């Protein structure tokens, strides 16, 4: 009897201490996960400054921002310092990057009850956070930009902090030497003749191939599966035209005729590509080849600018973007925010709103554009980005010839399926455009069905 009682008691105690420690462990991770930045020092000054409120919650006005772009971390720290200098309010920047992606880290933070007030999301992740994102409509900055993320249920939820563009990046000097006008590349026929011209002048221009297009799926699947595939969804369409993404998200439907034209264009890219890069290449080889003038076009976006201009054999050539004109008259490039800053509705919403408004104004844009090298999504921004692609992107933006980043709205993980189809097409195991359409249709449909 006594033995049983004792066993029961001990079991109870153990379970109790387990749960209690579980709670404690959760708590203890919170300073830990944020300590990789200067958080600790800032937080200690916080508690010194703030009147003895007797709580660990952040003082009035202090907010945390989760950044997913490690390359602009130090500039965001400057931004936070500037904000503190101008308004006295504290912003703590926490950067996630490298091999951890921000959405995974956010899930951990949510489970640990340690959510930042502002965090980065991609458009298709908004639904996961349904009901937890503050509606930012009515803020003054929404008048200055065309790029905010609007959800039909949740309202204006995303603040655009940068514009990125993707299309076929070209080497303007090589095109000029070959006598090809990039502005004329708005039809499949124009592209074909340009490719033939460039291909025939290979030795004269010193190029290896016309295209630096890499369909390697294991490490570069994001490029073919997300960015090149994006051209099927958006090329030639207006910024807010969601025809093909809506079709896709309606059970994985594709437009056969459009896909066929797109496939023929990709077939042309396969034909005029460097075979050494096409199947087994890497991102580094691709960008390095473009920087050294081995390729006239690469299938990347303006994020390659830093790697290109800092390459040792970069000759200082001008660059720009040409559209994927797989139908006559397609003259748009994809440009817009690939990700957004959103405000956590249980966080310090007012302080976060004030901060975002400040970011859209002059002194913050100065830092973001001139120091971080971002392209501003705000119409009244007076700074020109240092980006070598800026002139080209700006000309498309001014002419209203930008298409949306709707590829970010496709079902999570689809790029890992489609990139393999691009690779097989490049390798020749998928023989022609018709087979490509048939295969990609099958793959997409079965992915959406599961």
């Amino acid at each position: 009897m006594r033995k049983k009682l004792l066993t029961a008691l001990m079991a109870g105690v153990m379970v109790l201490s387990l749960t209690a420690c579980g709670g404690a462990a959760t708590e203890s991770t919170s300073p830990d996960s944020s300590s990789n930045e200067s958080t600790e020092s800032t937080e200690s000054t916080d508690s010194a400054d703030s009147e003895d409120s007797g709580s660990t919650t952040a003082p009035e006005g202090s907010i945390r921002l989760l950044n997913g772009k490690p390359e602009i971390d130090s500039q965001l720290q400057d931004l936070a310092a500037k904000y503190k200098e101008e308004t006295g309010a504290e912003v703590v920047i926490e950067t996630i990057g490298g091999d951890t992606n921000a959405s995974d880290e956010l899930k951990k933070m949510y489970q640990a009850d340690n959510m930042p007030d502002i965090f980065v999301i991609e458009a298709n992740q908004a639904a996961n956070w349904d009901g937890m994102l503050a509606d930012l409509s009515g803020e003054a900055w929404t008048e200055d930009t065309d790029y905010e993320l609007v959800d039909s249920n949740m309202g204006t939820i995303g603040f655009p902090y940068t514009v990125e563009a993707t299309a076929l990046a070209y080497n303007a000097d090589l095109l000029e030497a070959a006598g090809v006008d990039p502005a004329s590349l708005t039809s499949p026929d124009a592209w074909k003749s340009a490719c033939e011209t460039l291909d025939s002048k290979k030795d004269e221009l010193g190029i290896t191939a016309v295209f630096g297009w890499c369909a390697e799926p294991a490490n570069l699947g994001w490029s073919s599966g997300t960015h090149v595939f994006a051209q099927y969804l958006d090329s030639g369409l207006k910024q807010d035209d969601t025809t093909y993404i809506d079709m896709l998200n309606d059970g994985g439907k594709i437009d056969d005729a459009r896909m066929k034209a797109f496939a023929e264009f990709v077939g042309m890219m396969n034909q005029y590509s460097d075979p050494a890069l096409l199947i087994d290449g890497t991102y580094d080889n691709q960008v390095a080849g473009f920087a050294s003038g081995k390729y006239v076009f690469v299938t990347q976006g303006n994020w390659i600018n830093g790697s290109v201009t800092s390459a040792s054999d970069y000759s200082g050539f001008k660059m720009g973007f040409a559209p994927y004109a797989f139908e006559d008259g397609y003259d748009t490039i994809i440009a817009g925010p690939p990700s957004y800053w959103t405000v956590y509705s249980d966080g310090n919403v007012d302080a976060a709103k004030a901060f975002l408004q400040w970011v859209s104004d002059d002194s913050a844009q100065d830092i973001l554009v001139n120091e971080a090298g971002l392209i501003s999504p705000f119409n009244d921004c007076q700074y020109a980005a240092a980006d070598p692609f800026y002139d080209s992107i700006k000309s498309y933006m001014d002419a209203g010839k930008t298409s949306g980043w709707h590829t970010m709205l496709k079902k999570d993980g689809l790029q890992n399926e489609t990139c393999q189809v691009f690779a097989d097409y490049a390798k020749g195991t998928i023989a022609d455009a018709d087979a490509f359409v048939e295969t990609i249709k099958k793959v997409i449909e079965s992915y959406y069905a599961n």
Partner: protein
Amino acid sequence: MDYRISSYKVSTGNKPVSLACMIGGAVLLVLALIFDFMKISIPILGIELRGAFLVIGAIGIFVGLYFFPTETHHRNIINVIFLFPLLFAFAVTVIIPLILGVGYSFTDWDGIRMREVVGFANYIKMFSQPSFIWSILITVLFVVFNMILVNLVAFLLALLCTSRIKGMGFFRAAYFLPNLIGGIVLGYIWQFIFSNVVTKWTSALSGSQYSMLSDTKTAFIAIIIVYVWQYAGYIMLIYVTGLNTVPIDVLEAAAIDGASPMQTLFEIKIPMIASTFTICTFLTLTSAFKMFDVNLALTNGTGSVSDFMGSYITNGSEMLALNIYSTAVVENNYALGEAKAVLFFIILAAVSILQVRLTASKEVEL
């Protein structure tokens, strides 16, 4: 209390103090728990009161238990107290996640929250995915190939390293070295080798200008090569240890009786190290099933199969563990990933138990 009497008792203590400690400790723990749930925070001198309650409460309970005056259970109590850190760690890192994981697999958990319980929907769904069935098939195939090849190579290397060749220490170290390199690093190094060096040879042989990794069948072979290369050295060490335990006198007796080297190997050495074979097959079996890092770094599961169960497979070289990971993390479907992981656990447990049962019966007792 009388000194003479208490010295006969195993436990020294008195009941009221012990009970007070235990009850006080329990109360503090419960308070800490309540604080946690209610999000009450009371810092005193910079220390959170909740944390202090928790630690003092836990210590109180243990002190109470230790001084509980009992003769019959004192030893058990001591055992539990000393085992507690281990049991606690085991429960927190293995048992509780396992139970939670099984629970999550019946919901629509997306890593953030769950909206509803979906019963067996995830389990039904995973078996309707051709890509998942494909992953199971190639994992089984990989395990079979791997178990045979790793053990064969490792055993041959072990024979080499126990024969009296010169520079034995060097060979042992050299064969073991790949195992010290992490799988991810190894995968990226071999990816470079396969797509640059090996491609030169294969293009001369087969005329294909693309690397082994770009085709499903050859990519599968590539994974096996890398994994055998990495793992054989480790298994070799176990075989070396096994071979060294075979008594010299038995071997000498065999030699005097005129046994040839082959006979010695098959009739004496191998039966005598049967237990080593059990360990090694078990290790290779489970590790091959769980293989993740090389798979991720080398091919990331790519490769295509044009017609499998009526669909075009795009994850030709994706093993089970990687499939689970990409389902949960890349495809953002945590609940389905959990369901797959539960199946994975069941398969692994069943196969391991079966395998140990089967080979254990063949072992010879010395």
